[in-house]
């Protein structure tokens, strides 16, 4: 079955730097895999190489156990022979064909009998709820409709793998939510292996079963959405995922020392401590293990409140962001005392790599037992 295996994948454009550097990644059959990263990190290039629209500069791609692109073996299967589905970010619907013709195009090329073609056309259009649009032209459709047509076009031929390039980025907020549900439903119903690319962490977290976080042409971490958020493998992943972003506290500052004091242990190798905003729980009264912070401002975000907190020290104040879902009863300027949730703390060494708790390698299947860090 069509799992995708990338090994040591490299892409270098003429006289340029490599945009993809030695990426190895396995997408299991039935995975809903997301390539997540900032723009320019090489994620779309990888998707296009899987599709066969770009050639690898080094490394190999195998789909369903068959090499489709390997310079070292002299093997290359062009896009039109790979039998994959790709939904473009711009949808790339052909403006001179009706919706039905757009979807039918691949079926015609597959030389299916007419009855079969019509049956499939009707079925896929019903599935995607665009049955009434058959005779319209793409120019007459709304963005959401266009995207369904693009999806229908890719799905009509029953591709083994469906590739999606920024599937939700061109939709407005309501449609995004709706399409997100539909994509999840499609993944369940069709059981197709799906690989999609996005720079939007919300899109990645809500859709994917597994996420590969990328930066600078390299994979930073692969894991389930919970793993990526709960156990970031390095400073980049920790900083890229989460909104408001994680608080990074350099070691050697008064705040870091205070945290270390809290933890009751020196932080030998740690170069930075990450602290998730929702792990800071400010309270009015001081108490054991609480850190004194001054409230600077409260910013409502609709569903929650971001608090700007200052930690005063001799080097000057350090700004921390905290997130709560209860309206904070305090006013700006008030002194608060924050309790920290241990699982919100992440330690990183000088190279930016995560320092696992108790020096152990993190197990992929369960959150770290941060409580063990608190000795007192």
């Amino acid at each position: 079955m069509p799992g995708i295996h990338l090994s040591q994948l490299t892409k270098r454009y003429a006289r340029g730097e490599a945009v993809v550097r030695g990426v190895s990644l396995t997408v299991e059959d039935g995975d809903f895999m997301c390539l997540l990263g900032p723009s320019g990190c090489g994620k779309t290039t990888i998707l296009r190489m899987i599709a066969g629209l770009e050639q690898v500069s080094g490394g190999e791609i195998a789909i369903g156990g068959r090499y489709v692109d390997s310079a070292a073996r002299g093997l290359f299967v062009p896009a039109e022979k790979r039998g994959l589905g790709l939904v473009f970010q711009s949808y790339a619907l052909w403006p001179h064909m009706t919706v039905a013709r757009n979807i039918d195009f691949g079926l015609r090329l597959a030389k299916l009998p007419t009855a079969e073609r019509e049956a499939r056309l009707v079925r896929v259009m019903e599935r995607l709820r665009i049955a009434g649009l058959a005779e319209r032209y793409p120019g007459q459709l709304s963005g959401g409709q266009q995207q369904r047509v693009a999806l229908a076009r890719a799905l009509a031929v029953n591709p083994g793998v469906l590739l999606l390039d920024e599937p939700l980025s061109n939709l407005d907020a309501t449609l995004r939510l709706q399409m997100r549900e539909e994509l999840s439903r499609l993944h369940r119903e069709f059981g197709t292996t799906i690989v999609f690319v996005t720079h939007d962490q919300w899109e990645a977290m809500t859709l994917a079963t597994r996420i590969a976080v990328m930066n600078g042409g390299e994979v930073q971490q692969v894991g389930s959405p919970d793993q990526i958020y709960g156990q970031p493998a390095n400073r980049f992943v920790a900083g890229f995922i989460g909104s408001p972003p994680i608080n990074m506290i350099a070691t050697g500052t008064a705040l870091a020392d205070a945290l270390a004091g809290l933890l009751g242990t020196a932080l030998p190798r740690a170069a930075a401590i990450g602290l998730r905003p929702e792990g800071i729980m400010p309270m009015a009264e001081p108490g054991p293990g609480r850190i004194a912070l001054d409230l600077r401002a409260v910013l409502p975000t609709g569903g929650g409140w971001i608090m700007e907190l200052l930690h005063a020290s001799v080097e000057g104040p350090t700004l921390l962001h905290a997130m709560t879902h209860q309206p904070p009863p305090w006013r700006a300027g008030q002194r608060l005392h924050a309790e920290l949730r241990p699982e919100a703390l992440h330690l990183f060494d000088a190279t930016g790599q995560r320092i696992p708790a108790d020096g152990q390698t993190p197990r992929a299947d369960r959150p770290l037992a941060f409580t063990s860090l608190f000795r007192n």
Partner: protein
Amino acid sequence: MTSPRRPGRAFALPYRARYRFIVYSQDASTVLSLLLLALFLGLIVAPLASILGDMITVQIGDEARTQLQSDALTGHYLERVFASRVSHILFWRPLGNTLLISVAATVIAITLGTALGWLVARSDLPGRRWFATALIVPYMLPASTYALAWMTLFKNRTVGGQPGWVEAMGLTPPDWLAYGGLPTLVILSLHYTPFAILLVGNALRRIDSQMEEAARMLGASRMRIMRQIVLPLSRPALFSACLLIFADGVGEFSVPYILGLPVQFETLSTSLYRAIGTQQDGVAAVVAGVIMLIGVVTLGLDAWMMRETRRFATIGGKGMTERSHPLGRWKWPAFALAGLTFLLGVVLPLGALALSTVMKLPGRFTPENFTFDYWIGTGLHTVALRSGILLSPEFWNALGNSVRIVGAASLVAGLLGMLVGYAVVRSPLPLLGAALRQITFLPYLVPGIAFAAAFMALFAVPRGPLPALYGTPMILFLALIADQMPFASRTGIAAMTQLGREAEEAGRMSGAGWFQRMRHIVLPIQRGPMIAAVLMPFISGIKNVSLFVILAVPATDVLTTWALRLVDYNYQQAANAVVLMIALLSWAGTSLINRITKTGIAQGLES
């Protein structure tokens, strides 16, 4: 899956080569680019190289004069053109005339065109929408229309045949008014004014009114705003229009040919024509080379200036507003200027031409003098052409040739243009794409008459497997294709750039191979631009004179050359009728294009 061992180093190269081969062969654009490159090397570069070579090699028939073998190197032709007893007649005076006429016509056309362009684009001129179209008409008509109209009005007794209207009414126009430099200048000025209106008008339309208002808020007077805001902002367009008009003027052939002949008024293009007509191929090559040089320098200057000005491109704010300026008491004088231009540029010449074709004797407005014989008469008492043109086989033959040759060439040019666009945009080898882009643009730098001479130089004699093509429709066909490539390829490149890759990639994902993608996706999407890329060359080809006048023979007469032949034989009414038909075709075609595609006339008419 298991990860098999990497193949050993010794095998790396064959695998690499095989990989390259598979990758390149899955996409036909590499092969396509190479084929197109070969085609245009033969069709465009070779003729130009050949005429440059002819400047300095002994031509067949000149062995005795130069005391050298043919094809030997010689400075004979350069000397004859630039520094001999005849070079004054052959070159220097025509050069002076050409430069004088082109510069003067440019100045007049730009001055008049800028004023009218501003009135049409930015003022409350009465009927400005109507004028915006009406004032462009002269550019849709071939320049020879005006030359013949002038002859119809002002021809005097210096030349035989029927006199002009003024002469027939008893006033003899002097030669300086009837022929030569002055009428050529007037006609070219009128002919190029619309071009200036289009270019300057478009530039003015792009200037945000808010820029002017910002100046007014700071207390600037209207004159000051004009001088310090509007003119500097439209300066690139003005310079560009100047250079394009000048370059076009240098290559203009039909007007000086028709009006210059009676008084031996020669320009470079007529001198070139005469050199070819008298089998002085070497001299022709040198004159053509000079015309080419002027063209290349001028348009090179234009390209350079465009690049310079792009640095201070107008900053496109969001709320682009366009308010028209009230003319106040200048309203009616301005209206009179526009109206007069239309009268002189359209009504008078076309009216005179049309009337002349239904009048037996010029300038006599009595009922018995009117006749439709020149259109549909039979058994006329003339030496040749004994029936009206619509009943004469020659007319239909020439029309057929025009449509057939120009039509076929335009179809091929349009399709090639699209393919060039595809190759340029998609070629995996950027150098190949750049070469194609530059080569297909080359003919634009070379005035038609010089290009025709170059074609003549290369294809008049057998070359390798090719037989001598002179006198066949084939040479016209090939020359037209080459001549029309700049427009066709620019249209193609613009269209393909806009299309982007994704529409085609979506086709690949659906399993379509290269030919299927071209047939079902790329070309159908480009239907609009493709129609423009075919129709626009068709119209410019139908009214083309300079290519045909050198490459056509009586057997391959097209409408334009037949009209010139009729002028030479003094069948004034018939010639006028034919030119009117060309004007009609050209006008109808241009309107059709504007209706089909919404591309501005400005781009199309440049070619």
